[in-house]
């Protein structure tokens, strides 16, 4: 057997057990994973980019609808969710760091925090969606905008033409973003299981790093969605 020779043993010792044979080094393997993930994220940029272009075109066509629609959205909840995602990005970065310094406990704590913060985001989003459904702001057959008076009674709300387009884009963009959050949480559960088995080290932490890139990307999408959907309506049209 070739592996029994001195050369074979030396070969086995020269490589990290996690190194695939088509890579020269662990560094090259890691950089290849990162590059591959970024190529995927570029397709994600274009995927969300199509929706952002639709947003730009329809906002230009129906500026009044964008102002009115934007003012109906819940800014405190949107801002809260932005902060929640930024916190989750910090814990994600710290989870990668924990893997780099070989801290199993640091990985587990930070990954669990990331998962909990991601779940918090989705729970807040659920309450926002429920409010929009309650107020008849769902485009289509059930479109019936109302707003709540101080005594709790619902009064019809007049929104300009094109408001259904605004809410279509609101639900599609935030909905697809939320779907990405669900995928991200699933990804983190897998990484958590791997971290639990203490699979990562300073030499091998690619899966944490690459999943982290995905998580941060989803955060970046929200960084743009928040001002564009919730805030910009205030003064657009001047």
């Amino acid at each position, binding site marked *: 057997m070739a592996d029994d020779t001195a050369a074979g043993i030396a070969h086995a010792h020269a490589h990290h057990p996690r190194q695939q044979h088509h890579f020269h080094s*662990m*560094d090259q393997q*890691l*950089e290849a994973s*990162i*590059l591959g993930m*970024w*190529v995927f*994220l*570029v397709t994600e*940029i*274009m995927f969300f*980019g*199509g929706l*952002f*272009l639709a947003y*730009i*075109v329809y906002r*230009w*066509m129906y500026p009044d609808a964008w102002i009115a629609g934007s003012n109906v959205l819940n*800014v405190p909840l949107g*801002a809260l969710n*932005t*902060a929640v995602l*930024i*916190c989750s*990005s*910090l814990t*994600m*970065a*710290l989870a*990668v*760091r924990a893997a*780099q*310094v070989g801290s199993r406990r640091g990985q587990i704590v930070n990954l669990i925090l990331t998962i909990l913060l991601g779940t918090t985001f989705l729970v807040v989003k659920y309450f926002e969606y429920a409010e929009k459904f309650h107020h008849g702001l769902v485009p289509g057959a059930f479109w019936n905008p109302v707003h709540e008076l101080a005594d709790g009674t619902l009064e019809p709300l007049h929104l300009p033409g094109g408001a259904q387009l605004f809410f279509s884009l609101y639900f599609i963009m935030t909905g697809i973003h939320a779907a990405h959050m669900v995928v991200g949480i699933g990804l983190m559960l897998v990484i958590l299981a791997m971290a639990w088995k203490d699979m990562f080290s*300073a*030499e091998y932490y690619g899966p944490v*790093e690459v999943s*982290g*890139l995905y998580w*941060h*990307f989803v*955060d*970046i999408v929200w*960084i*743009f969605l*928040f*001002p*564009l959907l919730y*805030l*910009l309506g*205030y*003064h*657009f049209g*001047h």
Partner: protein
Amino acid sequence: MSTSHPVTAVRTYAAVFIALLVGTGLTVYIAYFDFGFLNTFVALTVAVTKATLVVWYFMGVRYNTPLTKVVVVAGFFWLLIMFGLGMSDYLTRPWMGVPGR
């Protein structure tokens, strides 16, 4: 040991985190001011700055190879091409009286 990807200090991550929270507060705060036609520009400047901080520090692109950096920049550049060509169509349709705006 991995030499091309140094370990970032917790202090650096904390500083970026605080900058991102301040940026979020700033975005909400400036939304109540009217900068005229610059409203969108100002809001997006804050968002782009925040996104750049995430990409550069949290995603660690500063430690990646030039090839990876080019791919990252190209991704966002293509996005601008799509917006540019898309809007150069829609914005100029009224000039020619093309149906469908």
